[in-house]
């Protein structure tokens, strides 16, 4: 029979065993535990454009070309290419010996099927498709684009990091409808996705692909040798920022992709943790207006917003007081990139002028108009911008209908073209990764093609002409000229209102080395002591 004293002894022993210091936590250096920015709910970075999906897909799939940190496309799966003088016939040769994770060889049949799927969804792909006479496999390793018009941006299109990315999949998978998610995750990238260990919303596991053919050049973003130093990478989905921060501090995870600004001071105090800027290209805040309905179907109302909009208010609301994390941006394009420009951005420069904004609205007969501002309050960045906008709109004489909602609802509502009084909207906020705003190619939000444009449906022939001029530009000088004209046309049209440029952090344990700044987490080259 169990005696009281025995029971107490056993309980004490169990309690001390449970509460042993967490020394057993020390993990093998071949395992990396990573907390991504969001839940990984699929892996198809062609059918969808979510950043988290694209980031995971970079581990599993490879691309024909890959951009480096100077945004120059370099051969990746390709050995090289030739192009005729007219830039119409592009012939590519694959590297020999490439294999998919199921052991099958990568052939040009896979490439053609993958590119055909990608061309339906990607903006640059659609331009290639519109100029395409044929995309053909010459032999197992050689394939060719035959175009009826020159296209100088082919290598960038095939190697860019913006989703939809031109990932190469086995032909049987690539034949999936481009508007449907794939359900088999076989690539030829440096890591294999372990679908059998996937717990969506909690855990995703990637194992090193031992047959991966590493390029000899040093790795630089998506180019060069993607040398993996881990046998396994585990993505730990943590919806709660405080939990992720605590897990990083206690050593239960190694790398956190996007610590929130509030927790950064705490993380900095921990000598075992490094904190640095995640993406040098940062992000551009966006105030998106609906061009279909009053008051913002009138360009004067849109310009009045630019006169009153103070980017400092927005950026401090988004990232706090640290001036290193934000800057004013009188441009639609990412600052500090090869073709960035501020041409035409004068309305965003200098002191804010509420009176001038009111006067302009008055002239347009729009003073006192009702504005339906739909704000996703479950996302800190959109919530912060929405609060500033509500205040600004009131100051210049609008009546504000502030609709607080979640991102899922906003995603549906912003697609409605109905008037705001019938479930539509006037303004919503978002933000664009700076890497998507380096030029017009991946920049969906800049398009001003009316009905076919991004939400808000801006229409401007000058903007559309500017985009085409950039595509036609043959050298950097011509690109810069095209970009300047495009930026000016976009400000003349007020396609949307940039609310500023801001940077976000990443944090990792000091035992991890080789973390680089990039628009996506770069796992190759990273090591753990």
């Amino acid at each position, binding site marked *: 029979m169990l005696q009281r004293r025995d029971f107490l002894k056993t309980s004490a022993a169990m309690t001390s065993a*449970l*509460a042993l210091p967490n020394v057993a936590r020390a993990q093998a250096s071949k395992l990396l535990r990573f907390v991504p920015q969001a839940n990984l709910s*699929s892996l198809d970075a062609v059918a969808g454009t979510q950043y988290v999906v694209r980031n995971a897909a970079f581990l599993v799939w490879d691309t024909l070309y890959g951009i480096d940190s100077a945004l120059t496309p370099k051969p990746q799966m390709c050995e090289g290419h030739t192009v005729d003088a007219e830039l119409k016939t592009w012939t590519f040769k694959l590297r020999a010996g490439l294999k998919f994770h199921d052991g099958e060889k990568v052939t040009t049949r896979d490439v053609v099927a993958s590119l055909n799927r990608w061309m339906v969804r990607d903006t640059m792909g659609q331009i290639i498709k519109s100029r395409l006479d044929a995309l053909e496999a010459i032999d197992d390793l050689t394939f060719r684009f035959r175009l009826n018009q020159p296209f100088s941006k082919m290598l960038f299109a095939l190697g860019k990091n913006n989703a939809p990315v031109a990932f190469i999949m086995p032909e049987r998978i690539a034949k999936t409808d481009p508007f*449907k*998610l794939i359900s088999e995750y076989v690539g030829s990238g440096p890591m294999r996705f372990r679908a059998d260990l996937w717990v969506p919303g909690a855990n995703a596991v990637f194992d090193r692909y031992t047959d991966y053919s590493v390029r000899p050049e040093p790795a630089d973003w998506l180019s060069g040798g993607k040398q993996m130093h881990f046998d396994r990478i585990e993505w730990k989905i943590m919806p709660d920022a405080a*939990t992720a921060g*605590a897990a990083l501090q206690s050593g239960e995870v190694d790398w956190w992709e996007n610590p929130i600004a509030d927790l950064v001071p705490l993380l900095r105090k921990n000598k075992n943790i490094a904190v640095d800027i995640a993406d040098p290209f940062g992000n551009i805040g966006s105030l998106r207006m609906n061009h279909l309905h009053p008051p913002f179907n009138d360009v004067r109302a849109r310009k009045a917003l630019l006169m009153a909009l103070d980017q400092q208010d927005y950026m401090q609301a988004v990232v706090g007081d640290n001036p290193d994390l934000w800057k004013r941006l009188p441009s639609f394009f990412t600052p500090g990139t090869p073709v960035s420009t501020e041409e035409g951005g004068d309305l965003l420069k200098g002191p804010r002028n509420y009176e001038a904004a009111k006067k302009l609205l008055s002239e347009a007969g729009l003073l006192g108009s009702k504005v339906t501002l739909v704000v996703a309050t479950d996302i800190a960045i959109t919530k912060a911008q929405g609060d500033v906008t509500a205040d600004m709109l009131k100051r210049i004489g609008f009546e504000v209908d502030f609709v607080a909602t979640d991102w899922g609802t906003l995603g549906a509502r912003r697609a409605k073209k109905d008037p705001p009084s019938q479930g539509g909207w006037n303004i919503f906020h*978002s933000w664009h990764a700076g890497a998507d705003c380096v030029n017009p190619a*991946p920049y969906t939000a800049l398009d001003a093609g009316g009905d076919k444009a991004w939400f808000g449906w801006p229409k401007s022939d000058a903007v559309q002409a500017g985009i085409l001029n950039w595509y036609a530009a043959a050298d950097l000088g011509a690109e810069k000229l095209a970009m300047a004209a495009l930026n000016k046309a976009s400000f003349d049209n007020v396609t949307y209102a940039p609310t500023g440029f801001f940077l976000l952090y990443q944090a990792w344990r000091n035992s991890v080395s080789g973390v680089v700044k990039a628009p996506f987490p770069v796992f190759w080259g990273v090591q753990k002591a």
Partner: protein
Amino acid sequence: MFAYIVRRVIATIPVVAIVALFIFSLLYFAPGDPAAIIAGDQATPADVERIRASLGLDRPFVVRFVEWSWQVMQGNLGVSIFTNLPVSKMIAQRIEPSLSLMLLTLTFAISVAVPLGVLAAWKHGTWIDRVVMMFAVFFFSVPVFVVGYLLAYTFALQLDWFPVQGYTPFSISDPLPWLRNLVLPAAALGGAFVALIARITRATMLEVLSQDYIRTARAKGVSQRPILFMHALKNAAVPIVTIIGIGFAGLIGGAVVTESVFAIPGVGRLVVDAILRRDYPIIQGVVLMLSFTYVLVNLCVDLLYTLFDPRIRY
């Protein structure tokens, strides 16, 4: 008794059917669009529309409801819109952590709360009673996530006794990692439950202890322990069991929060993620499962009454 159980199980069918219709209608008319989430922020409206069509979300309510109901009747809860995985598989992946958390929480709550409630009733009006009730009020008033953060900060970050987050599957050969992962979440989730059960136990025990048969037992010289645990507690058990059953619903709600705070891959987090993404098949599947479970728990509670009170017969 057997006939009663069969009748009650059959009675769950219309309940679950009504829940199914209600949840399907609610989701159909609620704003939100999984196609927009799949497409991502950079997709054009036309892309979103095409994805919506490819998912069959543009079809009429009746068509979708009939199709889904037919699937459910065949035991098929459908496939997740995002992962393409069967909903039943996704629920199965998440059952063990949730069940573990709930069982541990229930065990902890009952084993702590019932003795505390009995003690408070026995020492009614003394400082012991007041201290017990003060703790009960405190834990009942403080939200689960606050208790969770405080426990994690103290026992995981500062003292390094337990992990901050995560879940280790149960292993019969080495259950300690499983237990270490669940101690803090169970304590956080159990706090409010302990408070609730302790208060009910105290109140019902006070009522029973004032009954004539207890006075008679005392007059006959029966010692305190048998009076408390054999005579009083058994007669006070029916309301306590009832409140444990009702509290099970609260436990499910609390588990949603606790699983998020401690990053436990349970059913609660599954359904929260699904709601945020509008992954309709998962939401419908989980709600159906939970409503069925709740009906079964109530049945178990009703059957337990017969153990504690022989006068109750079905």
